[in-house]
């Protein structure tokens, strides 16, 4: 923005306060997306996702069912029909971050790329219609939660830990800096140090989107955001409209400050669908010719996306479905693809998961990780349990509680402990009692099922020196093992554990079974 010389109206201050408030709320909910030891989380952490009508629409198309709290997104549709695309200008946390980044450069050239986001929207919705759910890759709320949870926030946490370590060793007041660090750990920083696969890639993508603002103000919002496109289409019918009086001299002052590239200087050819109602044009106008109201005559430029472009986007959305799915069939049966407890059967799961990363953020052990190609290209960034990083805590049901679309069902504790997410098997060639004549019972000790799924086949074993020892080699009970992976996590055979979980036996599948 052009700095302090500018005169700002009270609406602009209200807008900035609203942006700041929503951003803080968003970050607060993100930080609260972690266990405090209770069975449920306190604050409604997935609130922003619940309000997202793009997730509603694509989930309806891809799975013929609505997200968990879909009614909230209907509220946003109603708001947009009344007031236009105010969400982008007043509430969207990614929009606000873009806004802040854009203010680092005073003036940037604009491109006429605004159609791209509508074509992306068509592409995404047409592919959802054919059950391919890719919306979450570009949906701004999913994108932001995923980027912050899996990359930026862990990186900041790591930096805070490293800095406090350095200050503790070499700083002037080690006890002071350490108590600041411990205070941060008590609230702002995560309880466990989070580590995610692909943090680097996800972080770079985030920095790219933010960095694009230096090329053009709010480039993501203007040209790429599919939620912005959806709200923009709704916005064309909105009740709140902008009008420009005869006093307008066409000086173009408003155009330079417009956040949305809505051509505010064009009067009747104003692009209502590109307007975020940021009120900058009102502030900028030296003639005070701009006003927003509900009574103004509807005057706006026609939205011409081009029939061929639309048809092309729809065709690509259709073609993407078989293309994504013929790539590699074997990927869909990766034995290590262990889904969170309560996950729907793979096809239905992929039809709903928007890869927002909420489940991975909330996972109490940090074991839920984003996939790359493990679930096929279609399954990019969906959650997979990696027990060596973190097992599935027996009594924990948080992933199902935070999932916005029901890809992971919300289960009660009693339902959850009955769900098998896989089965553990023992590598007898590496197991200490089986292969090396040494006592060890860690897997059995850790096994959480009330009747343990690991039992001992007690045996007398002759050692090299001629002694005979009684050992308790472990055996897995296939009926009882739920695949939580705590045995794999805790197995003292480092690097490649002597007991590990695969997805075989998962409750959600009819085929991926071992037992009759």
């Amino acid at each position, binding site marked *: 923005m052009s700095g302090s010389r500018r005169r700002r109206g009270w609406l602009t201050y209200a807008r900035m306060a609203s942006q700041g408030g929503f951003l803080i709320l968003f970050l607060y909910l993100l930080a609260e997306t972690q266990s*405090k*030891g209770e069975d449920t989380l306190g604050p409604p952490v997935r609130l922003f996702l619940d309000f997202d009508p793009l997730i509603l629409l694509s989930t309806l198309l891809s799975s013929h069912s609505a997200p968990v709290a879909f009614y909230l997104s209907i509220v946003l549709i109603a708001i947009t029909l009344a007031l236009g695309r105010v969400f982008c200008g007043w509430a969207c946390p990614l929009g606000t971050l873009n806004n802040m980044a854009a203010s680092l450069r005073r003036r940037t050239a604009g491109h006429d790329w605004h159609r791209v986001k509508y074509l992306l929207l068509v592409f995404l919705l047409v592919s959802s219609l054919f059950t391919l759910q890719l919306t979450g890759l570009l949906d701004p709320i999913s994108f932001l939660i995923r980027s912050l949870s899996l990359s930026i926030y862990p990186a900041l946490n790591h930096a805070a830990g490293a800095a406090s370590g350095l200050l503790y060793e070499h700083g002037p007041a080690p006890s002071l800096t350490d108590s600041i660090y*411990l205070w941060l750990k008590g609230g702002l920083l995560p*309880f466990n140090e989070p580590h995610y696969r692909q943090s680097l890639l996800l972080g770079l993508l985030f920095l790219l989107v933010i960095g694009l603002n230096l090329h053009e103000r709010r480039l993501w919002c203007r040209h790429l955001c599919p939620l912005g496109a959806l709200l923009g289409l709704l916005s064309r019918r909105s009740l709140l409209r902008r009008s420009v009086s005869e006093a307008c001299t066409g000086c173009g002052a408003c155009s330079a400050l417009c956040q949305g590239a809505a051509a505010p200087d064009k009067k009747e050819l104003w692009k209502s669908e590109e307007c975020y109602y940021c009120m900058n044009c009102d502030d900028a106008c030296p003639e005070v010719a701009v006003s927003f109201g509900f009574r103004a005559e509807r005057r706006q430029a026609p939205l011409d996306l081009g029939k061929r472009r639309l048809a092309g986007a729809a065709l690509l959305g259709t073609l993407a479905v078989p293309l994504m799915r013929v790539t590699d069939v074997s990927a869909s049966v990766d034995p290590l693809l262990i889904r969170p407890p309560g996950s729907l059967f793979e096809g239905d799961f992929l039809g709903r998961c928007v890869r927002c990363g909420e489940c991975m953020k909330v996972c109490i052990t940090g074991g839920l990780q984003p996939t790359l190609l493990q679930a096929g290209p279609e399954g990019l960034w969906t959650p997979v349990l990696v027990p060596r990083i973190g097992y599935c805590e027996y009594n924990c049901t948080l992933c199902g509680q935070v999932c916005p679309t029901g890809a992971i069902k919300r289960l009660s504790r009693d339902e959850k402990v009955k769900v098998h997410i896989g089965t553990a098997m023992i590598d007898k060639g590496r197991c200490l009692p089986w292969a090396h004549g040494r006592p*060890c*019972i860690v897997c059995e000790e*850790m096994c*959480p099922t009330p009747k343990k799924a690991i039992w001992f086949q007690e045996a007398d074993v002759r050692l090299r020196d001629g002694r005979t020892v009684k050992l308790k080699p472990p055996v897995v009970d296939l009926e009882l093992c739920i695949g939580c992976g705590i045995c794999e996590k*805790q197995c*003292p055979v480092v690097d490649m554990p002597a007991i590990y979980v695969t997805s075989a036996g998962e409750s959600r599948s009819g085929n991926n079974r071992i037992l009759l």
Partner: protein
Amino acid sequence: MSMDRRGFIKLTAAAGAGLALPGGLAIAAGKGTTLAVAKGPDPAMITRRAVEALGGIGKFVRKGDVVVVKPNIGWDRTPEQAANTNPEVVAEVVRMCIEAGAKKVKVLDRTCNDPRRCYVQSGIAEALKPLDAELKHIDERRFRKVKMDGRAIREWPLYSEVLDADRLINVPIAKHHGLARLTMSIKNWMGVMGGRRSAIHQKLDQALADLMLVIRPDLTILDAVRILTGNGPQGGSLKDVRKLDTVIAGTDQVAVDSYGATLFGLKGRDLGYVAAAEDMGLGTSDLSAVRIMEIKA
């Protein structure tokens, strides 16, 4: 023990465990070891009565002491499931320490399941809320390597707050364990071990006895309000829980665990770590040589 804990640790560190121990041990494991066994429906009441029978908390905690109370909070289980120390027992121990004028009472455990869930679901966080006690999660940076020159382990990282405390009170629960057979007071100290502690299962009995060379509680209070008889150490089924409404207090962990073993129909020396500890002169498992005071409350 006449010497305070800090002094003892410093002395063992300076002179080596072997030289410093015999004098201290004579007191802990000496003739006339006493156990107080209190029975009754109110866990807090029997805890208090058991400690009173040993001469009262004032014998173990003095004004201005920093006390560490070490319950078993290892598992994400509720009190009814008898996998963690009974919260009322823990709270009563803390209350007594505060009454004795302790400067600070710290309660801690390095848990097996998620620490947040363990502290909350065990009921211990709730029970300690009204008390001026510090229930903090383990800070992984605060382990300190300690030389013990034992028969199974030479040195191990142990929690510094435990090593630095003036007084140490062990408050375990009595329950089944797949390898150790039972876990009670001696095995409860795994909860202050850092590093890859699961590796000690390869020589569990001896390693636990070795740990006793450097971790020497002033008082041990064994919670047998509910005991876990199978699928331990975390259980989960109420079918494996038996309600005994009992608390055992003593200063000799070998004697306490030997008495605890009888609750499961075993003898002290049936437990490998009890035998190993007794063989190292760290206590007595011979209950006939122990003065046992039974209290109904």
